[in-house]
């Protein structure tokens, strides 16, 4: 029997979701003196037990392959991850339309995916905000680099980002802390890239190398994906939400799955209905304003499920655009064996994971490359902590068994390099999410159905990525050892063979996009709903395009700007 509490207090702001967007909004509003109720669909993040940092594989019975050996059968175990999530969540299904392929990673814990993400923190370039003006494809943002740049400054200063000033247009400089030195394979990669005219620069990562706001500097264990004992990387949980809670203006409700936004006669949001996962009872909290930060697709789902006679297509959806123009990142990968690394004296190379990367370098020659937009490349290599699967490629290559195999593994350890391409997908009409007409989740909430299609732009780009990686490996004197699928092993393969599954890079973006025209966009330039003035969105949903830059830093910058705008509008009595 659902228990609906109608006499709850009225909160100034209810924030739904506690990742990069929700964490930032919560922190900024709390600092501005606004009271916030933060709702998270998962449990509280408890650093004492949820951080698996410094654990060895043999300290879990299955060594990291996952319960029941699931890692051997195509299901990625996130054994050491602190994000409490995956593409399959018990009781929380989604569907994929026939002919589409899409994977939807969701996180259920305070801090969401910021507890495990790669920490790469790249600013959009000036041209990334105006892609349509550049090549006639997709849409321009209603804001420019100049509008967002001050918020990149605030974000970088507060969360702490390592990097170096390079003066490269595709990779605008920011406010950086000193990065760690390049690893040996980075130095070789940079040398080879030099021969090919490709830049290779220190990665900009949300890692601190000097004490920052009471947080200790990085201790270089390379395990950022497990969250951090010393809070030396950015995660919204320990960098923003816990300090915000100390102000006394923030209340957190965990295990609260938002079901629906309830509106008043004037069409404004008056309350959020949610399921308390502990009791399965339905609850309501009343609010003056609401900020959706549940992730692009969850926020779209919540709006589409908030139907009423006044809003038959869902709330804030007079444009019909909610759920549309879903994008992910174009992902490919290729690895190589580098003879120059054979016999290299062993050293502790952990650091903070990726120390160097290749920013997009062909923006001036875009017409010659054969596809619009660009990609960047994240470098991998070094003497990593061994795990399940670490030597599978060596086994496949070497075959055999016995002392010969043991010797081959010992000799090949640390001689590999890997390249992960991360490129821009242009929003298209065939990639979107909608409410599945038949299926509901464990709490009776209608689920999402995904439609997905890569266009030729992305497929051509993916081919270019893999070809480039092969060229770099060859320029290093190495041989290509493996890619995503068999045909990539020669450094070739068609786009369809080498491109990632939709959703697999976990950069889903764009389902409630911003714009100046209420007919073609859901939100205005401050991420405020055109239709519902006390409704804001602060996750990846508002993005108009999905540049090659990893979205988190831009989510933080936009959320910061939205929170300041919201506080000011509230002060003026406009919302």
């Amino acid at each position, binding site marked *: 029997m659902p228990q609906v509490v109608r006499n709850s207090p009225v909160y100034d702001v209810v924030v739904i979701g506690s990742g990069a967007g929700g964490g930032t909004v919560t922190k900024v509003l709390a600092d501005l003196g606004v009271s916030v109720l933060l709702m998270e669909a998962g449990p509280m993040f*408890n*650093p*004492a037990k949820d*951080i698996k940092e*410094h654990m*060895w*594989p*043999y*300290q879990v*019975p299955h*060594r990291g*392959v996952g319960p*029941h*050996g699931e890692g*051997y059968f195509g299901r990625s175990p996130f054994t050491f991850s602190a994000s409490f999530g995956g593409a399959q969540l018990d009781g929380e299904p989604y569907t994929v339309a026939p002919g589409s392929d899409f994977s939807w990673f969701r996180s259920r814990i305070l801090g969401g995916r910021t507890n495990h993400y790669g920490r790469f923190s790249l600013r959009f370039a000036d041209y990334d905000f105006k892609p349509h003006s550049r090549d006639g494809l997709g849409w321009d943002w209603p804001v420019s680099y100049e509008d967002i740049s001050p918020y990149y400054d605030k974000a970088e200063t507060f969360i702490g980002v390592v990097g170096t000033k390079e003066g490269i247009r595709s990779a605008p400089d920011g406010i950086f802390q000193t990065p*760690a*030195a390049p690893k*040996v*394979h980075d130095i*070789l990669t940079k*040398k080879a890239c030099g021969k090919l005219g490709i830049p290779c620069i220190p990665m900009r990562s949300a890692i601190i190398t000097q004490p920052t706001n009471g947080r*200790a500097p*990085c*201790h*270089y*264990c390379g395990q950022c994906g497990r969250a951090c*004992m*010393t*809070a030396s990387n950015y995660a919204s949980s*320990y960098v923003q*939400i*816990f*300090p915000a809670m100390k102000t006394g203006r923030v209340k957190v409700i965990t295990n609260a799955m938002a079901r629906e936004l309830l509106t008043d006669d004037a069409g404004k949001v008056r309350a959020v209905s949610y399921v308390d996962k502990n009791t399965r009872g339905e609850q309501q909290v009343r609010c003056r304003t609401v900020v959706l930060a549940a992730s692009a697709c969850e926020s779209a789902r919540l709006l589409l499920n908030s139907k009423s006679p006044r809003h038959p297509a869902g709330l804030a959806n007079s444009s019909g655009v909610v759920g549309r123009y879903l994008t992910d990142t174009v992902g490919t990968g290729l690895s190589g064996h580098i003879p120059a690394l054979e*016999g*290299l*004296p062993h*050293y*502790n*190379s*952990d*650091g903070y994971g990726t120390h160097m990367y290749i920013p997009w370098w062909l923006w001036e020659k875009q017409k010659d490359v054969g596809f619009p937009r660009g990609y960047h490349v994240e470098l991998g290599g070094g*003497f*990593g*902590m*061994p795990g*399940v699967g*670490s*030597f*599978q490629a060596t*086994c496949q290559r070497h*075959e*055999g*068994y*016995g*002392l010969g*195999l*043991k010797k081959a*593994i*010992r000799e090949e350890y640390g001689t590999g390099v890997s390249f992960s391409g991360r490129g821009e997908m242009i929003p298209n009409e065939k990639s979107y999410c909608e409410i599945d007409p038949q299926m509901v989740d464990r709490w009776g909430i209608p689920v999402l159905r995904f439609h997905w299609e890569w266009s030729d732009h992305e497929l051509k780009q993916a081919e270019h990525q893999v070809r480039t990686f092969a060229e770099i490996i060859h320029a290093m*004197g190495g041989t290509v050892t493996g890619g995503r699928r068999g045909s990539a092993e020669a450094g070739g393969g068609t786009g369809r063979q080498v491109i990632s599954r939709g959703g697999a890079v976990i950069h889903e973006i764009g389902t409630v996009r911003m714009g100046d025209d209420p007919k073609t966009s859901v939100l205005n330039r401050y991420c405020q709903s055109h239709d519902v003035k006390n409704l804001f969105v602060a996750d990846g949903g508002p993005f108009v395009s999905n540049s090659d830059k990893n979205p988190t830093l831009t989510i933080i910058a936009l959320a910061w700007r939205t929170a300041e705008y919201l506080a000011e509008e509230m002060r003026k009595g406009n919302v």
Partner: protein
Amino acid sequence: MSEYSRRDLLRSVALAVVSAEAISAQEGQHVHQMATDRTEKSGRYEPKALTAHEYATLERLTDLIIPPEGKSPGALAAGAAAWIDMLASENERLAAIYTGGLAWLDHAMLGRSEKNFVDASPAGQTALLDLIAYRKNDSPDLGPGIGFFDWARRMTVDAFYTSKIGIEDLDYRGNTAMARYEVPVEAIQYALKKSG
């Protein structure tokens, strides 16, 4: 900063991590200690998915895949068979792969030497493995053995190199806290020189 003072810093770690549930520094440190101090359990493993004979066969097979050499232990010492059996006891597909594969191994050995795999001579055992350890030998006759050996090799290697002794054998030096990140100059010079 010395490693010792770095440890002190780590002890204060949980201080920086201000938890909503007021995690004390001691508790945070406790977890850290657990992670670094815990070691593998010792004692005789009782197979759960495999019969005693199958398990003995698997133990022999894993030790042939990653054998001991001088001071370097092998897969038997690393408990590879126990780990595989434990996973097979939780996963029917793995259980089928191993019971079927080990039976194939016995059957193939019986046809060659009238002995089960585990009872055959070391030379007889390796003669059979020399056939099924390579994809180039694929045939209707050997196919099932080659497919099974691929699984056994993959999981034995995983088991060995995720064990404490396997990680030591590999000379992995990380998973620790460092005050500064430094790359040894001699390593850089070595690689640059070798890269031409």
